């Protein structure tokens, strides 16, 4: 009996092991597909144009950082980057404050018809941006916002992100025990005070999750950013700026690669530091449009 079991398990084990190795090989091949374009771009960014055309496979002969300097100065990537950072920071702070307040009100302050409000929020976040942007553009131009730097862009980002963020934060708020707040209320703590001193410290991870999710959207958005900056050359965010840069240099690939690297590297750093929130953000923001 015991020998039979042993034999069976051993045979199975070896079969399983070959499968694992086959999978490993497939995954390694796919790794090349997923990571090589980035590495290739990084290597190319250190070459100059003649070096690139003479042999695209060769490793860069020397550490040429000229492309990066060019991308920063003539391509204005640095300026665009700064614009993107400003837009992202303002949007994220705005989204965070406003949706925390809204979700706190929806969970803990006795708002009537919470369910209807939630359903509306839910519907709003599925709505494709295509039906919004043209009238919004008209609206913003009538109110004179389009002449302002950054303002039209982050106003829209904040407004669009509030529904999704509020829903997620509300789900987290519900996990904070009610008794905690009632106790604070009896002790004479005001609503704003108890929100900041009691609830928010408990919600750190939820806030990070929402922030990361929104950063993903704000940093990469193109359509609205492009439309609002059609008429000006100020306050252009990175996504639009990168396309402008591509238009200027046409097929100067090494320079384009340098610009791409400038954009990608900070994102990788953020991702590695905040990996756990990225995943949580995806799951939580599952329904975000």
């Amino acid at each position, binding site marked *: 009996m015991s020998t039979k079991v042993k034999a*069976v398990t051993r045979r199975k084990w070896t079969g399983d092991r070959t*499968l*694992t190795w086959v*999978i*490993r090989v497939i*995954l390694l091949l*796919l*790794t090349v*597909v*997923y990571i090589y*374009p*980035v590495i*290739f*771009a990084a290597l*190319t960014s250190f070459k100059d144009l003649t070096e690139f055309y003479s042999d695209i*496979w060769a490793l860069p002969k020397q550490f040429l950082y000229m492309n990066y300097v060019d991308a920063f100065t003539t391509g204005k990537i640095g300026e665009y980057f700064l614009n993107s950072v400003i837009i992202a920071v303002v949007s994220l702070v705005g989204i965070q404050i406003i*949706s925390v*307040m809204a979700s706190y*009100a*929806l969970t803990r*302050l*006795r*708002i009537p018809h919470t*369910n209807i409000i*939630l359903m509306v929020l839910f519907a709003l976040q599925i*709505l*494709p941006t*295509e*039906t*919004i*942007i*043209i*009238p*919004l553009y008209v*609206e913003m131009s009538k109110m004179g916002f389009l002449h302002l730097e950054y303002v039209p862009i982050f*106003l829209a980002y904040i*407004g*669009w992100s*509030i529904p999704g963020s509020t829903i997620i934060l509300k789900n987290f708020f519900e996990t904070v025990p009610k008794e905690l707040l009632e106790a604070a*209320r009896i002790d004479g703590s005001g*609503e704003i005070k108890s929100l900041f001193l009691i609830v928010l410290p408990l919600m750190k991870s939820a806030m990070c999750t929402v922030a990361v999710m929104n950063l993903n959207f704000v940093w*990469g958005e*193109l*359509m609205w950013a*492009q*439309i609002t900056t*059609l008429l000006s050359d100020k306050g252009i965010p990175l*996504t639009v700026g*990168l*396309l402008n840069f591509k238009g200027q240099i046409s*097929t100067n*690939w090494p320079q*384009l690669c340098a610009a*791409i690297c400038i*954009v*990608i590297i900070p994102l990788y750093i953020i991702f590695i530091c905040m990996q756990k929130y990225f*995943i949580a953000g*995806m799951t939580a923001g*599952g*329904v975000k449009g």
Partner: protein
Amino acid sequence: MSRTTTKPAKKKYGKLDKKLMFIGILFLMPATILVAFTTIIPVVWNIVLSLCKWNGNGPMEFVGLENFTKLFTDTPTLKTIGNSLFIAGVSTIFTMVLGILLALMIYKTGKKEGAFFRFVFYNPNIMPMTVAGLLFVFVLAPDEGLLNNIFAAMGLESLQHAWLAEPGLVLWTLAIVAGWKGSGCIMMLIYTGVLAIPDSLFESAKLDGANYFKEVRMIILPLIKPTICMVFSMEVMWSFKTYDIVWTMTQGGPGSLSKTAPISMIQQAFTYNKFGYASAIGLVFSVIVLICIGVVRRMLRSETYEY
């Protein structure tokens, strides 16, 4: 949702409740104003605009359903909506299949390697669509691009193509690049779903002599079905965002072969100043997207297994 639990709160508003409600409404104010300004008013206005003829400047002229009748007879524009649907469909299928396969394979390799592979496959997701698009413009460039050079190095010149310029190919290329970018996210979500399955189930399957294929078919897939459904409906929603990738990679070209609905909408508005017509395109496209999402959600509503 907890529709029944709110009822007791409604019975009577005490003094404290009234005060809380007042504060609550104050707290909701900024959100309401911003959402109204950026979403609700534009959506309503979009419907109004779609019934008008307006060049963006000057008086609006009410024309009823003329924009819509024009749209449904305007083959080039209908074609762009078709292109959007094509890219969305192909990239959704590609992403889902690839994402699920990757997740199942990574699950098999074990924890430490898994972490490495997950980072690798998730990496396209970190970059904005614009960056991924530009990267692939470079990779797919006809002469100096990576892909064609790889084919040349392997002696497969017959496989070389002008990936973004050949009429029959460009939509597929775009859809696959979009799928490549999305697959990491799907992989991650499915993977977390698989991790949630208790180990005891696998142990009993192992004792019964099931191999990994059987495990996948009999245990993993049925149990992560709810995850797959959720991910699928999310992916459908994301896949319709075709503006970034197409604008970055081809700008709708060659000709207007890869032009998608958002691009044609924006061109109608900002190049030809036909704001009414553009709004109609946006509205019709959005309705189609919403119908697709609704159909997918309804289709996927199914039984789940408790474990």
